């Protein structure tokens, strides 16, 4: 039975034009064409999407949750990346 064990795919759905694809879930399929078809049946039975991506789960490289702090820390000490960092005199418009 194990020789017919289909690989896992991650499914991304674009819910409508103008929005990016969002992760919807995963499924098993023998190849990409089947994965797309299965994703259509599984994740868009009620018009939830206008476009689908399927990606072999094994192709995804993920950041480790243990690295959460050091990995994302650099962003925390750069408040000047946010517009609210800057003081603008009252009354100045369109800024």
């Amino acid at each position: 039975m194990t020789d017919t064990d289909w690989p896992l795919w991650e499914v991304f759905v674009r819910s409508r034009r103008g929005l990016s694809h969002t992760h919807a879930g995963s499924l098993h399929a023998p190849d990409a064409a089947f994965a797309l078809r299965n994703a259509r049946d599984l994740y868009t039975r009620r018009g939830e999407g206008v476009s689908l991506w399927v990606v072999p789960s094994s192709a995804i490289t993920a950041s480790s949750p243990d690295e959460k702090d050091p990995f994302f820390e650099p962003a925390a000490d750069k408040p000047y990346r946010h517009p609210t960092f800057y003081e603008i005199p009252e009354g100045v418009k369109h800024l």
Partner: protein
Amino acid sequence: MATAAAHQTARTHGSAGQEGDIDADDTYQRVFDATVAADERIEPRDWMPDAYRATLVRQIAQHAHSEIIGMQPEANWITRAPSLRRKAILMAKVQDEAGHGLYLYSAAETLGASREDLLDKLHTGRQKYSSIFNYPTLTWADVGAIGWLVDGAAITNQVPLCRCSYGPYARAMVRVCKEESFHQRQGYELLLALSRGTTEQHAMAQDAVDRWWWPSLMMFGPPDDESAHSAQSMAWKIKRHSNDELRRRFVDICVPQAESLGLTLPDPDLKWNEERGHYDFGPIDWTEFKEVLKGNGPCNEQRITQRKAAHDEGAWVRESAAAYAAKHSTRTGVEQA
């Protein structure tokens, strides 16, 4: 089998070569506890206690099995649906149940369970599915009673699971709950049509409700003081409300709905309790529940036999698709070389 980097646990409890010492585990436990306490979600690659993982796998697998076994009692009526409209609705509903099973198996897989293994455990009786599906669907009205009562009870159980502490399970439940609403309404509409129909049709609807009412109340599980896993599951925020609390909520919802249907619920003790602000209801026959759970329900054997047969008879489809994919990938490989 390909495992997803996105699903792999970064560090399992005491895994070799990692900082699996007691201090590190303590830290992980504290992070886990704090995350749950803050009502945030635990995600697949986070550290989690082994017992939390095992509880979730058991619960999600049982839930997934219930969805796919639940296809059988209703599919029983597809070929005999009274109109094309009802037939199309029923097929869509049974297809949804398959979909719900797949969302849930996927959620279980993010915890490291394998699909093959889960199905094997279902087929060999090592994992259970909801007892409710061991009752037969004797008439067309049963399709309505299942939609209204069984799916109604399922929704009452499942809505709080949308806030379950484990992210993938909670997300699967959001999707399931959206779809269950159609299931419940189509059942209610079906029963209403029968109830307002001929005398025979009305009697058929009443008979179905009489048979499904008590098993539906049993779907919430044993009373709180006898529920083995409840306290821990509530501490982990897997479960948000107790069995009895959800059961009470369900009864309160159903009584007025039954009145609108023009049908009665088969419980002489059912009456409004002004003081408690809830309906009182009669005692549940837990002996029956335990018997069905043990495998002595009307359809236990039939459900598993049919499930195994469907799986075995579908083997050639899985094998052919895998062979085609293998052949195709070899060819593509040659072209690319």
